[in-house]
């Protein structure tokens, strides 16, 4: 087995020193708080932009992207119901009938 080059040994030494600190940081309560806050801000901004865009489209009596998303989710839920029913029907057909 060939020996590691010097630059790699240096990288490994730095990584060994830095990695535990970086891992401790992402596991800290402060990191959790900041991540949750960023996620909340992102969502609030997205909702705000979507709300304004939806009002504009509704003014000219057209559906907005959010309306279509809602419809797609509703169709998705219906699709799931049909899928589960067909699976349950398949299971019943597979079971031997009692005489």
């Amino acid at each position: 087995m060939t020996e590691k080059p010097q630059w790699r040994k240096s990288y490994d030494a730095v990584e060994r020193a830095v990695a535990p600190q970086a891992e401790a940081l992402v596991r800290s309560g402060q990191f959790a708080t900041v991540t949750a806050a960023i996620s909340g801000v992102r969502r609030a901004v997205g909702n705000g932009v979507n709300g304004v865009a939806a009002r504009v489209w509704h003014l000219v009596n057209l559906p907005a992207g959010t309306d279509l998303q809602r419809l797609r989710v509703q169709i998705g839920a219906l699709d799931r119901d049909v899928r589960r029913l067909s699976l349950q029907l398949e299971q019943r057909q597979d079971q031997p009938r009692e005489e």
Partner: protein
Amino acid sequence: MTTESSSASVIDRVRREVERNALRARNGIRMAAGRSRPKIGTTPKDVVWQRGRAELWHYRNDDVRVSPPLLIVFSLISRSYILDLQPGNSFVERLLAAGFDVYLLDWGVPDERDAANQIEDYVDDYIPAAVERVRRIAGTEQINLLGYCFGGVLSLLYAAHHLDAPLRSLTALTTPVDLQQLGPPASLIGTGGLKVETLLDADGNVPPQIIDQGFKALRPTAQLTQYVDLWERLWSDDYVAAHQAMIGWANDHIPLSGGVAKQFAKMIQDNAIVNDTLVVGGDRVSLSDITVPFLTVLANRDNIVPEASAAPLINLIGSPDKHEVRLDAGHVGLLVGRTAAKTTIPTIIEFLIQRSEIQE
């Protein structure tokens, strides 16, 4: 050492580095141009059942010598080609060579039609339907079931909720049970610091980017180290192919159904598996009710499913015939590469063969 031999070794080293740099340049250009993408998931198979995005694959094998067949239930957040990565480095290929009749339940890529899916959809509908289809095709009363990662959780819940399931054995590979040991993203969700609803995309699912970022947060320096590893061994064609296949898979997540994500968050908050407070389809279920022969395989350097998360499983299962194998490997290394070839796969094959019939 003489001056002559010392200068010869310096010349050899310089020559080797020059050659390697030329190969690095060639492989680097190939990678940048996208011309060296390895072929993945190439073992021949047939889709024998399909419902929604889910497909049941039957791998072709003209030399089936082991009965009953083996059904693999894959995870909900990653792609199943990791089990059939490349010829010569494929879990499925090894199982086929050992004479198994192998089926794989692949969940496909969820979209808005799957946003409302619940864990019960998989545990009470899809898995029983797939088990029934495998039995019918193979003409056997029982099957061997193997769950990978989150697919292991689904397999455990299926076995615990369907105590009359026709299982010859159950194998759980790198399966998390202490959900509060899953690392920062799960901790955030477990403490209520992060609401699943804030993670959902417009289609109602958790987008793959969020899952990817969550896993990368577990080892913040790992990505940089991957590039350093690649640079160091970019001269090796074999290493580059394996690296591309493995790193490609590690970055290739799929969306997680929003409904399942919400249920999973509740399971994390309650730590429901280890605290024995699981409810499936309105019924209380307990892993201690599982009595079929059982094998759990976990890795001590797994940063996706940490050892602490998978370790309690063996003690939760009620089977008298239960075994645990802990290996010095990472999450991917458990099924791909040298540890997999030498230890994991032979161990699983041995466990299954001892509980199956061998046809001469």
